[in-house]
């Protein structure tokens, strides 16, 4: 308590001291100009600082691009529709950085160039219809292009249908984990409702209808295995709160909403093994493992276990705030050859058998 009070008093004293110092500083300025209105000196200093700030914006842009701009999430996507999104993303980013560079330059350069000077008169320039028309119509045309491109892609991606013999998989979300339910031989998901959930001796964790014949061959798993090159139709369900099924490498995201089923369809095109061989991913994994090795040293010195080395895997993340452990709601996704997938699937127990 006393220390708190003392600190408080000291802070107050320091504050008063600073105030007095600024006052002295103000008074010592030319002709004791203490109006607190900017004079030519202020205009000059701040004009130059504006140019400095422009440089700062450019530098932080360049640093961000060089250090963190190597984004495996742009460029290498692992799904069929991914490259379309990536192309549009790159076009948009290039456009944005062009406009950003030019407009920031104009803004800050004008702020520097036309910094105030006693006695100079500004130009009385209130309107120019032609100019304003130009900078209305240019965004209109550019945006029209982006909108059209975006809409075509969007309609294509969001058109969930049963063409091309897709596998039907339910992604089931709950606080704080994921389950996958494969539709099985018949490729039809059995009926389910949270009211049928039974956590007793003979558990029915996803609330499947035990009487439904379509439910018998359903397979419930803790990992998501997908055969490469085959379309998947995901049906999302949540048992408690909103979740979001986010698989960034596949450019896929859809919320899981209690009380309704949401859908997303995609075709994985790159197996986990192939992705691990991508130069960008190898780089990233190496960077991560270097960091982890360094951290491990500190941990070992502290008498704790070292961190496991990281190996790349696709992931399904929860991306809608869902409660305390939202930050750790994940499921491993494995894309593999048709043979490996079938082999894995054969090892799984169907819902009907478990009974």
């Amino acid at each position: 308590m006393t220390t708190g009070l003392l600190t408080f008093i000291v802070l107050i004293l320091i504050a008063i001291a600073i105030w007095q110092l600024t006052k002295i500083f103000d008074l010592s300025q030319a002709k004791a100009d203490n109006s607190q209105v900017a004079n030519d000196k202020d205009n000059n200093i701040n004009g130059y600082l504006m140019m400095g700030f422009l440089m700062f914006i450019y530098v932080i842009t360049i640093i961000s691009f060089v250090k963190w701009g190597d984004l495996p999430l742009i460029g290498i996507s692992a799904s069929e529709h991914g490259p379309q999104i990536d192309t549009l993303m790159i076009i948009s980013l290039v456009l944005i950085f062009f406009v950003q560079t030019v407009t920031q330059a104009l803004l800050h350069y004008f702020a520097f160039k036309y910094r105030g000077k006693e006695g100079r008169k500004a130009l009385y320039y209130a309107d120019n219809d032609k100019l304003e028309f130009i900078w209305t119509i240019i965004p209109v045309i550019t945006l029209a292009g982006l909108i059209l491109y975006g809409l075509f892609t969007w309609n294509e991606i969001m058109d969930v249908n049963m063409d091309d013999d897709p596998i039907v998989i339910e992604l089931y979300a709950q606080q704080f984990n994921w389950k996958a339910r494969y539709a099985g031989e018949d490729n039809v998901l059995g009926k389910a409702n949270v009211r049928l959930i039974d956590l007793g001796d003979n558990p029915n964790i996803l609330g499947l209808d035990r009487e439904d014949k379509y439910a018998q061959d359903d397979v419930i798993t803790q990992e998501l295995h997908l055969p490469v090159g085959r379309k998947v139709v995901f049906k999302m369900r949540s048992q408690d709160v909103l979740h979001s099924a986010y698989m960034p490498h596949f450019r896929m995201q859809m919320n899981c909403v209690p009380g309704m089923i949401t859908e997303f369809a995609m075709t994985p095109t790159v197996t986990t093994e192939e992705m691990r061989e991508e130069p960008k991913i190898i780089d990233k994994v190496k960077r991560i493992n270097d960091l982890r090795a360094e951290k491990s040293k500190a941990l070992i010195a502290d008498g704790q276990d070292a961190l496991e080395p990281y190996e790349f895997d696709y992931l399904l993340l929860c991306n809608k705030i869902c409660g305390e452990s939202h930050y750790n709601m994940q499921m491993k996704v494995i894309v593999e050859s048709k043979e490996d997938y079938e082999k894995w699937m054969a090892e799984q127990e169907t819902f009907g058998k478990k009974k």
Partner: protein
Amino acid sequence: MSATAVHAGDHGHDHGHHHKETFITKYIFSQDHKMIAKQYLITGTIMGVIGIMMSIFFRMQIAWPKESFTIFEIFLGNWAPDGVMTADKYLALVTIHGTIMVFFVLTAGLSGTFSNLLIPLQIGARDMASGFLNMVSYWLFFISSVIMVISLFVEGGAASSGWTIYPPLSALPEAIPGSGLGMTLWLVSMAIFIASSLLGSLNYIVTVINLRTKGMSMTRLPLTIWAFFVTAIIGVVSFPVLLSAALLLIFDRSFGTSFYLSDIFIQGEVLHYQGGSPVLFEHLFWFLGHPEVYIVLLPALGITSEIIATNSRKPIFGYRAMVASILAIAFLSTIVWGHHMFVSGMNPFLGSVFTFTTLLIAIPSAVKAFNYITTLWKGNLQMNPAMLFSIGLVSTFITGGLTGIILGDSTLDINVHDTYFVVAHFHLVMGISALYGMFAGVYHWYPKMFGRMMNKNLGYVHFWVTAICAYGVFFPMHFIGLAGLPRRYYTNSEFPLFDDLANVNVVITMFAIVGGAFQLVFLYNFFGSMFFGKKAPQNPWRSNTLEWTTPVEHIHGNWPGEIPHVHRWAYDYSKPGHDEDFVPQNVPMKDGEEEMHH
């Protein structure tokens, strides 16, 4: 003549400047718009301090996950046992930071302060249309602020489901402890807040329409007033929808209805809810939530228009286009809400529609940015702190606005939705921009509010450090968002995938701490200048608008004599044919002088 007689004789007047005022009627239950503006500003500032401190705390948790900090022990108490922030209280901090900054600082603190201060002064009115409603509006805001702060101390902690309070998380105490009493208080606080905001907005609208002085046609209104006026209209249109959303949520929480809930199994039990949909809540919420962005931003842009013109000693470029953009933005803002819901499970066709309307809103925004830049061109820029913050606003408005092209595009939103890319975008375009607008307004109108000048050198230090830190915090965030890092994660250490982004988060937090600490310079300048600042002259910035024709000492009714008449628009700066580089609005036209704008 006896004192009683004077008093009786005065009774017929309604200006009230001879009324004897007690401390209570002058400083607490004041009906004077200037005092109410100051009350809003100081309450908003206090809330701002709380909101910014919270953000620094959770930034520290993100940078140094699960580490123990003494400062947490002191400020967070049992939210951080042994100085380690818990996961659910991290979410509580994120939630209340968002709520406070969006509503209490940038809506009430910004609009409440400057609409109240400037509407009567700039249109030439003695006060607001209803001083009483204005007072009620402030006190409702005050009560809602107090309830929001109290909600931090109740059992289970404050609301923790994000400032968007999506049910079922916000509806079920079983889902997260903060959805108990904390959430109830959040809803009560917001309901009162909305009532306050509606009373305020109605007052602003009526005042602007009815109480303009002679000659103050709508086309001569300063852009500040246009912005406040249109903001009030957006508020009246959209806030009631949030109120209804909140009421339905209260029903679901307390009276067993199922507006938003259906088929829920939680903590080993099936709940009775059947037939509702959280997506309904999302629609209702964002029907306010998106216009809210412009409720926050438009007043800041209005303030900036005024300050940039005054300090450039030039007319604002394209006055008509500026008004048209404000109106276009206001209209479009009410039909774009679905871009927050592209991946919510709503019909993809709606996604197409909302992409279209959303990208349209970029057009009036671009026009505004270009017009600001052109206003600087060939000006005679007076680099006062207010001007620096206004230029800073244009800069962050461009940087933040441009990434809206990505987020507004449903296709691209799939992969960056709810990542740090979104956090970077909206903090720059509405958070920092609106905050800069608020700072600019405070530096510019401080002499009007407190009759003293703020220290300019402290203002410069405040601006430059803030400007650098704001970019330092939010620019790198775009990149960790593009790398797929979701927002609202207590720690990223559960995902080795994101390990290489950890050092970026440390850099961001460093900038946040420095930027936050330097706001103390502002607070110091703000409160110190009230007592020690240099006495202000009547028109320190040599400005055209009417507020600078009132005496420095505040009086009821604003002008001691007649209200000045208006003869010209607000932007006759450096007009040829005049000796001075400014011509106040109340100066009559010379013979043969023309109004130069159409």
